[in-house]
């Protein structure tokens, strides 16, 4: 399968994807026309605040949202040339876990508290790869060992409560790695962890990604993490991609005012104490009732009249790989606290 034709194609191509929730209070536009591509072996960062739609986007791609009719979709998710959205459930299940795996934010709640760790790993191996029980147990111990947890064999018979948060997240990664997926979606994988453990987990994820030539979608609210661990980045705001380019380019030359504001609002260690933070005034828009025009206009310091009425699409100017959704983009200049 991996012929030259295939390898030129991006692993994942999302085209004009919509995910709307039909709620009693109206329709929530959680993901609202999102398009991007992810190449093999690359890490794409998806940055945004809560309510930006970044988590819904990841759950839409791996297709684990409710199927009771309350979730409405449109658009394409092309994974290795196949549109996942049009696959029957049985084929999609073959992809889930095996081709695309996911790591969740809180390892305290993403592991089943009443199932032994070994069972939570072996069930993937048995059900998905058709291994027998003994082989699965051996492989599970190997996986546990490979994510840096000591005494792998003993760990198999323990319950998640016996492990620390960092160790649980390693187990969650071991589960995700069990079928050697081509794409790993990591949804805020370190937000619930302490900083020193966060660094260990992120380093470990990067090492695995390089070793296996896996693609990673790293969802986070932390631009510092994006800066250190991703190749490309998409900034999301109120269900839409606001800016998309390589990570270095974004840090050096943000074009969308929201990106700039996000960078300046986070306190940086290198700033002197009592540095006034450039807070973004107001609140992100309510997804049940998105404003006309640019979704950021009510909070944008550079807002002009057309921003209030016309919705900007993703465009670019000098650099075709740097797209942004803004009528009045920032000029190519360096901003942000941490840039040398």
């Amino acid at each position, binding site marked *: 399968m991996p012929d030259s034709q295939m390898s030129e194609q991006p692993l994942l191509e999302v085209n004009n994807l919509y995910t709307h929730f039909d709620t009693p209070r109206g329709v929530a536009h959680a993901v609202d026309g999102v398009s991007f591509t992810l190449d093999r072996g690359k890490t794409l960062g998806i940055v945004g*605040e*809560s309510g930006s739609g970044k988590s819904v986007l990841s759950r839409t791609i791996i297709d684990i949202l409710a199927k009771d009719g309350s979730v409405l979709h449109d658009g394409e998710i092309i994974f290795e040339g196949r549109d996942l959205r049009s696959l029957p459930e049985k084929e999609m299940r073959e992809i889930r876990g095996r081709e695309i795996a996911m790591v969740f934010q809180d390892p305290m709640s993403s592991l089943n508290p009443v199932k032994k760790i070994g069972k939570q790993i072996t069930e993937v191996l048995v059900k998905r790869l058709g291994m027998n029980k003994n082989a699965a147990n051996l492989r599970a111990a190997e996986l546990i060992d490979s994510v840096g947890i000591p005494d792998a064999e003993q760990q198999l018979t323990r319950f998640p409560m016996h492990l*620390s*948060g*960092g*160790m649980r997240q390693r187990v969650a990664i071991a589960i995700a790695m069990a079928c050697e997926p081509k794409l790993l979606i990591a949804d805020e994988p370190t937000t619930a962890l*302490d*900083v*020193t*453990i*966060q*660094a*260990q987990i*992120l*380093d470990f994820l990067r090492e695995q990604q390089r070793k296996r030539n896996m693609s990673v979608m790293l969802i986070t*609210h*932390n*631009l*510092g*993490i994006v*800066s*250190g*661990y991703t190749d490309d980045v998409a900034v999301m705001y109120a269900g839409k991609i606001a800016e998309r380019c390589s990570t270095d380019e974004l*840090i050096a030359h943000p074009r969308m005012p929201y990106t700039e*504001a*996000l*960078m300046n*609002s*986070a*306190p*940086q*260690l*290198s*700033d*002197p*104490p*009592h*540095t*006034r*933070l*450039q*807070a*973004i*005034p107001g*609140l*992100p828009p309510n997804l049940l009732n998105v404003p006309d025009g640019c979704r950021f206009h009510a909070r944008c310091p550079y807002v002009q009249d057309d921003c209030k009425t016309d919705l900007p699409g993703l465009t670019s100017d000098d650099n075709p790989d740097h797209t942004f959704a803004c009528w009045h983009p920032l000029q190519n200049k360096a901003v*942000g*606290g*941490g*840039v*040398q």
Partner: protein
Amino acid sequence: MPDSTNTTEATLLEVRDITVEYVTQGQRFAAISDVSMDIAKGETLGLVGESGCGKSTTGRAIIQLPTPTAGSVKFEGRELTELTHTDMRPIRKRLQIIFQDPVSSLNPRRRVKDIVAEPLIISGMTNKAEIDAKVREVLNAVGMDPDITLDRRPHQFSGGQCQRICIARSLIMEPNLIVCDEPVSALDVSVQAQILNLLEDMKERYGLTLLFISHDLAVVKNISDRVAVMYLGKFCELASSERIYEAPAHPYTAGLMATIPEIGDKSIDNAMALTGEIPSPLNPPSGCRFRTRCPHAQEKCAAEEPAFSEIEPGHQVACHFPLLGE
């Protein structure tokens, strides 16, 4: 920036060797032990550390929730640990606390005006017009329009707005000290900046003193005059925010700083990065509590507990081999 001659003038809070013990699974253990600090009037002291280090316990012990098992807490010269509940009550007004989760710390069934006015009513104020005027004043101060806010209930507000309401509620008694327990950790970055700026403004306007507790060193450095770093229930370093950033003397502080992902950093400084996990507070390591994760640990560290001592004026550290290079 506060004038350094001013801040050292009067000590508002004097904490000496407080220890808080709990019993879990039939075992007694100290959540914090021998914690001492002074906070000057108008100062912000930051308290930083990872989960389970005892930073929240310290904050609560200061406001006597619960009273520490041992040690002394002097607030405006009065010893709080010996006060009865009744004697403590008038002092509580001057000692407020705000919590991490603003939404769950507001009663969802009450209107904002009742929530904010509650401390006044408990303290015996009855004049309705006066109460109303005070509530409006503090709501205005925290940037919430009283006309829109007063009759609504907490669920109609976002997390950041709820935190503003919590701050308004704590301000209404005109406190001297506010213990801020992870006040911005549950908020988005853009909203976090609003609340941090607001706290700075309120400090100026009401002459507040803050004990600011957070796991985020960058946030703590931004808001604090001095920073204390905690590990496994003890202080390991205390210095001015600038000094602690420029020249961290404790390997833990240095490691913590090295692991924070910063915008523009291409990778984390692995030489300083901390390995391993935080040991259980039920059974802390012998000698220096950090030695199991310390890249510089030596025999002495296991045998002998380092004293918390001054290595330069205003810079204390608990380490046998403090990092001294600039």
